[in-house]
């Protein structure tokens, strides 16, 4: 093993001594004059240029998505018959990218996945409804049911993993609160068939009540830190 090397080379142009294991001055690239021929130890790990992994699958999907989206828009434009169906294609592609990427990441909380999926799926079905000539099926039936299912799913997860309740508390409360969106839409007259909406609202109220009454200290503390302002 070499001792700390302070036997070094000199750059005559910069008027500095150089410790690096190299023949050129790191400052001006001119050739160094050897002091005594002893080479120094590198003080940094070897430089690695290729740090970004080349992800071929992601690139194929990105390529297909862009080509697919543009093809749909052009075809739709050339053969226009009153329906802007290409909006659906593009929305579906965007939905896949955002929602699916979020769902397959392994470190993300499962309740968070349910929450995000519910929001994205709701927006997506509403877009479908609008493009197909609005008839209200999305807001009347699908969106309230999505929130009911989300609420019940998170509740089941919590009952199964009782000890980890605090990890799901933020999403449980968020889904519970977002579950009131259908009833707000009903109050503004957007929803005209309120049965599913009423069921969804009742489930949301029950979920929130359940969290606030049965949640122990860890759940309360979790909610406190998550909602601190």
């Amino acid at each position, binding site marked *: 093993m070499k001792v700390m090397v302070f036997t070094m080379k000199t750059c005559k142009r910069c008027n500095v001594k150089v410790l690096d294991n190299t023949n050129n001055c790191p*400052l001006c690239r001119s050739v160094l004059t050897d002091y005594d021929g002893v080479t120094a130890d590198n003080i940094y790990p070897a430089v690695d240029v290729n740090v970004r992994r080349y992800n071929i699958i992601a690139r194929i999907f990105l390529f297909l998505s862009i080509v697919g989206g543009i093809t749909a828009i052009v075809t739709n434009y050339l053969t226009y018959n009153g329906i802007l169906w290409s909006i659906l294609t593009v929305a579906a592609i965007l939905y896949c990218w955002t929602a699916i990427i979020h769902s397959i990441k392994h*470190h993300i909380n499962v309740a968070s996945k349910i929450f995000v999926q519910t929001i994205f799926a709701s927006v997506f079905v509403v877009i479908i409804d609008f493009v197909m000539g609005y008839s209200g099926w999305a807001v009347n039936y699908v969106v309230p049911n999505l929130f009911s299912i989300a609420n019940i799913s998170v509740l089941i997860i919590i009952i199964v993993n009782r*000890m980890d309740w605090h990890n799901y508390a933020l999403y449980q409360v968020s889904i519970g609160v977002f579950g009131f969106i259908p009833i707000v839409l009903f109050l503004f007259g957007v929803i005209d068939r309120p049965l599913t909406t009423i069921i969804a609202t009742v489930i949301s109220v029950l979920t929130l009540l359940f969290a606030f009454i*049965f949640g122990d200290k860890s759940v309360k503390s979790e909610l406190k830190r998550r909602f601190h302002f």
Partner: protein
Amino acid sequence: MDKIKNNRDNEYRWHKLDNTANIFPVISNKNFSSVYRVSVRLKEEIVPELLQESLDMTLPLFDCFKVRLRHGMFWYYFETNKKKPLIGPELSIPCVYFQPSGNNQFLFKVYYFKKRISLEVFHAITDGTGALNFLKELTCNYIRLANQGDFAEEHNPGPCVDMTSDIEDSYIKNFKKQKKSGYSTAQAYQIKGQKLPLYMIGVIHGYIDTKSLLDLCRRKNATITQYIAAVITWCIYKEYLNEQPHKHPIQISIPVNLRPFYDSTTSMNFFSLFAVGLLIERSNYTFEEMLEVIKCQFKEQLTKENFSKKIAFGVATGKNIFVRFLPLPIKNLSMKIIYWKSAKANTCSFSNLGRIQVPDIYKKYIENFEVLLTANNADPIKCGLCTFEERSVVTFTSRLSDTYLQRAFFRKLANDGLEIVIESNGVYDENM
């Protein structure tokens, strides 16, 4: 339901981010890591097992390092991280971004390479002073473990740094309702040039004898920080402006440790920034002239009143009722926009960590300390200075493939009669 009983929340304590820390989780990503490095070079090769052991000894003393970052509805917060931080061999690129799920969710990492121990820290948890305290404690623990023969008599020496775990937002503590002043957003001259390959950072250390550097500064009647800041300004003027007038001023941003001003011992962030520099209006400046201007700016700006105004601005913004209740994603978006609008206000950054003190018994095992500020595409060159005993280390970190500033800087110091020893991380060799 009576099964749902646990007291774990007692263990998972949490605290808010301090007033400046809030910006870092928002603006950071792979290209803008907000991670800096403080290193210590010892005289013997590092033994990884002992380093891990000393890290395990050190961490319990520093609550602010033992955290993971979580997001709430309105703000981020830190929560106790129960996992174990692992040391690792140094990577080829310094100051890489901490992926939220990687590194056992810790926001710091201890690396070793040959004789060097490096501590990389995400700026949200603490500033340079806090990181140096952690590194000093870690190093002293390591030296004791590695040289047990020399320390046999001492049973329990206790922490070697005087401030350890003080979680206090000193910005809020020292906030007074008063005249506020934010940071300047006027555009400064930007150093441009071809960038190094992805994420790569060029490092050039310059070792200088402390006494000759001090003598030189005394002759010029300046402090080391003033002198180095003036040399950097001078070199940018010579090398990048070619001694010609430019419509944007050269601005060197300098962080200041606020603890001495307010008698704070916090282990979280407590720093502020100020900028010195000048608008180049003619082509016959002399270095002495520039040094005088910069000395005056230090006198004007390095005052408690000035920093109190900046604290008042930051804290008042954070306390604003509209800001507080903005949901986190919207807050993040607006913070990003505001940050990037003001990001062009600096030409270069220079940070002087000052003279580093360790207890006398450890001094003979230590060669020197170094600091690496993270360079990024928006702020391509940064400079840091650490002084330990007779060895001062100036470190340039750069994303640029040219080394004009570094070359001019060290040539200028060499011309001033200093003996300079250069060492680099080899990036400039690779890219010939």
